[in-house]
């Protein structure tokens, strides 16, 4: 089957979604990221791998956090980075996107990091660019956000290396989360035996069971004996219509409090992709506790993005 993410000999060509990545490539990215974690702890926080390469962050949708982490990652690899925030209101058709991309190709960009509110935007660009250019999806619509999924899996592997023994729970707005799908795919591929999703019916996609997850609507039952609690951000800005009674009501039922967390294993870790809605999906007492690994997730996110860019740049020749 044709997979636009891979070269004919199975190497990573673009990173568009975690779906369709063979286990070998997934593990290669995680292992490579290990060697980049320590770069940030040096005097000179830079390695020369992407020296002379130009990385262009094209953000059709605003996301300062994601853009910043990609920018730092590219700069730590010694690439030159250009940030482009494109106003989506002026462009509704795919053609306009490709015009923007053509201009940047003419400026000899080597890699595109693409964020768009429409699913498939990164695929469209990947199909369009010449062979020597790689595309990284930095989040598209509800579809996927592969580097976030990878950094979450990396964080889990760091704290809980025995992945074939884990019970992982994803809690909250699964429907609007582009992380959740990436996550479930990656965890399944890496052999995590039990993945749970805990959410109200209105925040679950149709037929979510088909992804191989166990569905819970009750937080207390769902959190019992889990090793990893992955809180999802309540995407209020993406929510059209009334799917929820109120955020207070949501917190009461699905917010992670110390009392609910006590039902998980005592050494369970708590993750959140950020930015957190304190008092909506997570209690500050949990977010700031020793069990939270939310800031390490940010640190590891840089290493994962460095690994992805390094692998793409190395395979392009």
């Amino acid at each position, binding site marked *: 089957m044709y997979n636009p993410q891979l070269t004919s000999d199975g190497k990573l060509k673009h990173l568009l979604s975690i779906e369709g990545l063979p286990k070998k490539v997934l593990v290669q990215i995680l292992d*490579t990221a290990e060697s980049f974690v*320590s770069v940030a702890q040096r005097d000179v926080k*830079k*390695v*020369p*791998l992407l020296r002379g390469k130009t990385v262009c962050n094209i953000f059709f949708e605003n996301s300062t956090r994601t853009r910043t982490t990609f920018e730092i990652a590219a700069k730590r690899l010694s690439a030159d980075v250009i940030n482009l925030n494109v106003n989506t209101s002026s462009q509704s058709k795919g053609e306009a996107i490709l015009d923007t991309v053509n201009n940047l190709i003419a400026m000899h960009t080597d890699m595109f990091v693409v964020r768009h509110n429409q699913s498939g935007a990164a695929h469209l660009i990947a199909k369009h660019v010449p062979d020597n250019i790689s595309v990284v999806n930095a989040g598209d619509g509800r579809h996927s956000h592969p580097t976030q999924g990878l950094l979450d899996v990396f964080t889990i592997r760091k704290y809980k290396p025995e992945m074939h023994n884990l019970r992982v729970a994803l809690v909250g707005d699964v429907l609007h989360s582009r992380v959740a799908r990436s996550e479930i795919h990656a965890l399944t591929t890496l052999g995590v035996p039990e993945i749970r999703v805990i959410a109200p019916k209105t925040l679950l996609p149709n037929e979510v069971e088909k992804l191989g997850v166990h569905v819970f609507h009750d937080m207390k039952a769902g959190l019992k004996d889990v090793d990893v609690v992955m809180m999802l951000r309540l995407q209020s800005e993406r929510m059209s219509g009334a799917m929820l009674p109120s955020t207070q009501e949501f917190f009461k039922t699905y917010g992670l409090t110390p009392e609910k967390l006590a039902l998980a294993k005592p050494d369970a870790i708590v993750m959140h992709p950020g930015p957190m809605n304190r008092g909506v999906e997570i209690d500050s007492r949990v977010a700031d506790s020793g069990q939270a690994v939310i800031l390490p997730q940010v640190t590891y996110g840089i290493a994962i993005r460095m690994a992805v860019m*390094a692998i793409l740049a*190395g395979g392009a*020749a």
Partner: protein
Amino acid sequence: MQLPNPETLLSDITTKITALIKPDTAIVGIHSGGVWLMERILASLEQAVPHGTLDAALYRDDFAQRGLKNQSQAANIAFDVQGKHIILIDDIFYTGRTTRAAINELFDFGRPASITLAVLINRGGAELPIQPQIVGATIPLTSNQRFQLSQTTQGKLNLALEITEDADV
């Protein structure tokens, strides 16, 4: 070809390295062979010497052609490089490109006072103005031959001569 015993070569370079050790000396091994050698050398020293490991994969000049090796290791330099006399250890010296990459990586940790290169075998074929100062043996090979150092589970070194198909490797 009669291959030398790598254990003999190791004890030979260990003697030479021991003679160089001063209070501000540090030892750095290059993955993987250089790290095995370093650990053996450290074990035979009477005093503790600051030490670390490098992979240099992130600094290689052939990255664009070869990409990253899957098993590239993080550098682990826990001592202050500034002002140290560093003895860099690798197993086989060939083109000098690994050494160049390792020197560049070391400089990103600080400014050493000096760097000395110690290798088990110099197989000839340097492509850069870089030469090892401490050498166990010099055995010139043709471009389709290569030495492969390995370590047994008991920690003994083993040396093999391999014929590669690709003359440019």
